[in-house]
């Protein structure tokens, strides 16, 4: 058996898992793991940049129970694999030095964390490389469970959140299981091609059911409404770098799987059907918009930096789906590009917050502030990150959102556009809360002695910031990967160059926009410093914040009860609708469970037996006529 490139990737990934158990105990051992992630990244990059082949197959095929399982990476898989491995690399470098020692000192098991991370990478690669429905489902389950492992590591509250995730993930997996069973029985085969050709004779109801099962099942993982409740707390409770990894890429696997099944396997035909008079494409877009708006505004209410970021992670997934649901060149490219962009800034932000926790021990936005003077590099990372998250130039977040908006306008979907913009407004407001409450304002007394984090931690953060900026200024590079991904699932590809997209209605060239922006900054700086650049120190109490007088009892800057006015305004909209639905379902289940348990707790057990016997006999006499019974 000749080793294919993909097999080498697999061997390295497996090697990382094994090595993590061997060397994970030592803080320095993480370096070797980082090296292995780097090697994986090199292989994936080689595959991505290779122009000869669009698909890399594994030489390994498994014949299990008469089903041939195979693995291959094509454009879509490669795109996600690149993000996965790169994120893992950054995260593992972050974990190597001081952070790892700190984590261990706090009672965490470093080898287990390394193991969980590498297992996540391996299982995600398995999923991304799946070449048939069976390997897809196996990869899906394994990835779900290894994510559970990573979430549950911290124990305690984290385990509770992880269990909640588990129930949701299992529900999703079972929907997918059902869908796959239907597909396989219809096609008589697990192979994509066979399934694709069998779908032609599918009845309308069946394909609608399949669409529902697939989108909902895989959508659970990406936090699609109404299956989003698990995500924020589960991610927030994961140990720092793990949260960065999960937030950056893990939940995007749902999108990957939806794309794979909806477009590659089913050819996109399912989206053309109508459900109760509305085309399922529009319905999907509206679900995406709801996924943008609700979690984003929920994020604004959070007082924990990690929760805030995690809620945003859910919302940003909505943009991706929204773009792709448009199914036109700009939208699809924007949606898919957003996966990469989101991964970069989400990882950077989580790492930055994790750095803050590392130094201050807290991520409570009501108890931080002024850290910019102590942790300037972390501040820069967070600044770049939130600009990306908010979708402002010159970061990459702007590019993908611009593409999605553009596509919405071109399709004439004004309402969807408005919805998306409302979401962006919420994003801007809440990320300002994030950076203001943690880095701006006055430094708290207890935070006076802290220093910037060590280089093993700020290096990955700054590198990520650099990537955010560079891929913002030159979006052509990631767009190249995106176009390969779009091609592999048969979606249209926009015309693009290094600086952006060339489109009829108006092109986007980030080089020009960034140039103008930086020129503007330069002019402002020139004016400021040219005028003498004087600044004046004032007493912290000598200000007037939002109509409130400040007292010494409050913090020096106003971070408690941030956005009180806005919150008051939109409060009626927050009734915890989804929580209530969840609770209602659980209570319903509990009542049902109590009822059936009553069957087993009866004083007279024989009564049920008697009833069932008589009913059975009655039924038997009814159908058993032909059997020679009565």
């Amino acid at each position, binding site marked *: 058996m000749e080793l294919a490139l993909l097999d080498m990737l697999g061997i390295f990934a497996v090697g990382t898992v094994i090595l993590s158990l061997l060397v994970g105990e030592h803080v320095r051992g993480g370096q070797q793991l980082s090296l292995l992630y780097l090697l994986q990244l090199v292989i994936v990059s080689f595959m991505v940049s290779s122009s000869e082949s669009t698909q890399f197959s594994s030489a390994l095929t498994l014949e299990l129970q008469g089903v041939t399982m195979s693995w291959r990476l094509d454009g879509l898989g490669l795109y996600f694999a690149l993000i996965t491995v790169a994120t893992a690399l950054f995260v593992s470098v972050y974990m190597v030095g001081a952070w790892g020692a700190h984590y261990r000192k706090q009672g965490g098991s470093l080898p287990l964390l390394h193991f969980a991370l590498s297992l996540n990478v391996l299982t995600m690669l398995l999923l991304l490389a799946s070449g048939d429905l069976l390997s897809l489902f196996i990869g899906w389950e394994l990835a779900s469970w290894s994510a559970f492992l990573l979430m549950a590591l911290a124990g305690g509250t984290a385990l509770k959140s992880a269990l909640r995730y588990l129930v949701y993930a299992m529900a999703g997996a079972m929907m997918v299981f059902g869908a796959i069973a239907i597909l396989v029985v219809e096609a008589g085969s697990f192979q994509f091609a066979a399934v694709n050709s069998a779908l032609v004779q599918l009845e309308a109801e069946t394909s609608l059911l399949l669409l529902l099962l697939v989108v909902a099942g895989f959508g659970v993982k990406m936090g699609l409404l109404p299956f989003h409740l698990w995500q924020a707390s589960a991610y927030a409770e994961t140990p720092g770098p793990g949260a960065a990894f999960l937030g950056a890429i893990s939940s995007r696997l749902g999108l990957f799987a939806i794309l794979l099944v909806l477009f590659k396997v089913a050819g996109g035909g399912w989206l053309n059907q109508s459900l109760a008079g509305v085309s399922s494409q529009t319905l999907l877009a509206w679900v995406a918009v709801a996924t943008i708006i609700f979690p984003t505004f929920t994020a604004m209410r959070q007082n924990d930096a990690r929760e805030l970021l995690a809620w945003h992670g859910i919302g940003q997934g909505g943009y991706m789906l929204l773009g792709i649901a448009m199914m036109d060149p700009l939208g699809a490219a924007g949606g898919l590009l957003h996966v990469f962009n989101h991964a970069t800034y989400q990882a950077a932000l989580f790492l930055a917050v994790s750095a803050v926790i590392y130094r201050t021990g807290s991520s409570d936005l009501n108890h931080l502030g002024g850290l910019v003077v102590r942790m300037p590099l972390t501040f820069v990372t967070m600044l770049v990150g939130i600009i990306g998250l908010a979708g402002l130039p010159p970061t990459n977040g702007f590019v993908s959102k611009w593409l999605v908006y553009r596509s919405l306008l071109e399709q004439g979907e004004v309402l969807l556009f408005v919805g998306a913009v409302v979401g962006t407004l919420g994003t801007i407001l809440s990320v300002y809360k994030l950076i203001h409450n943690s880095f701006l304002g006055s430094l708290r007394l207890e935070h006076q002695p802290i220093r910037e984090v060590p280089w093993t931690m700020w290096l990955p953060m700054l590198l990520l910031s650099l990537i955010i900026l560079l891929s913002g200024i030159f979006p052509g590079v990631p767009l190249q990967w995106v176009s390969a991904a779009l091609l592999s699932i048969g979606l249209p590809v926009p015309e693009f160059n290094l600086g952006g997209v060339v489109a009829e209605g108006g092109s986007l060239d980030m080089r020009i926009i960034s140039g103008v922006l930086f020129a503007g900054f330069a002019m402002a700086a020139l004016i400021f410093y040219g005028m003498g650049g004087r600044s004046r120190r004032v007493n912290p109490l000598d200000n007037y914040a939002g109509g409130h007088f400040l007292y010494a009892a409050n913090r020096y800057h106003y971070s408690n009860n941030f956005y009180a006015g806005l919150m008051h305004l939109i409060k009626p909209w927050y009734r915890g609708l989804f929580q209530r639905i969840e609770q209602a379902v659980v209570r319903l289940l509990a009542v049902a469970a109590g009822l059936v348990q009553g069957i087993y707790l*009866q*004083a007279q057990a024989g*009564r049920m037996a*008697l009833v069932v016997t008589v009913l059975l006999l009655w039924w038997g006499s009814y159908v058993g006529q032909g059997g020679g019974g009565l």
Partner: protein
Amino acid sequence: MSREHRSMAWTPLLFSGGLAFMLFSLFMAVPFGEPLMRVGGMIQQTDGELGAANLVTAVVLGYRALDTLGELAILFAASTSVGLILTGVKQRTVSVECEELGELFEQASTLLLPLLIMVGFYIITHGHLTPGGGFQGGVIIAVALFLPTLAGRGAALLNHRLIQQVEGGAGALFILLGVAALLQGESFLQPWLPVGEIGALFSAGTLPLLYLAVGIKVGAELAALLTHLSTNVPSPEVPR
């Protein structure tokens, strides 16, 4: 926890009625009094190949001997279980209001004992000839052995150890008779002594031996059961 509703108390009656109706209509669909006798007919046609004048005995000990073995084992398991359950309960021999039974009863039980045992053995040994057999005879023996206890004369006759040895030995005899056939190159539990003349006391090969084993075992086991149940009547504790 107990979900009892007085208003629903009639439902079991309703369903019992339903069950009666269902079973009735089921069994009435079978022609009564004209059994197919598929197996029974085959047995009839063998014309006493086992040498047993009582065909039921031939079935019990020959054709369906495995059932009988299982049934012996059930009785054995039950008596062992009873022993297991009731050991540890405070031993207190209850002479069932012996004072009131009177001299007559005591004497009668002593007199009846050998008679009953003899009747029991008679029924056992004639099991292949007449209606009756090991089970019926065994029950009579058990009653005989239990009578003195009932009459308040203590459990002198019912030595646990002896009973256990007898019941174990009889059960083993049953199986060993079957294994002996196996050792002769035949099937397990195949009757193997000469069949003899139908209707004679010494006939039907090993069947009477098997019935003897069954009779002794049943007698011993029932006696053991009865003693256990009568000597171990515990004084009820005051509920907590």
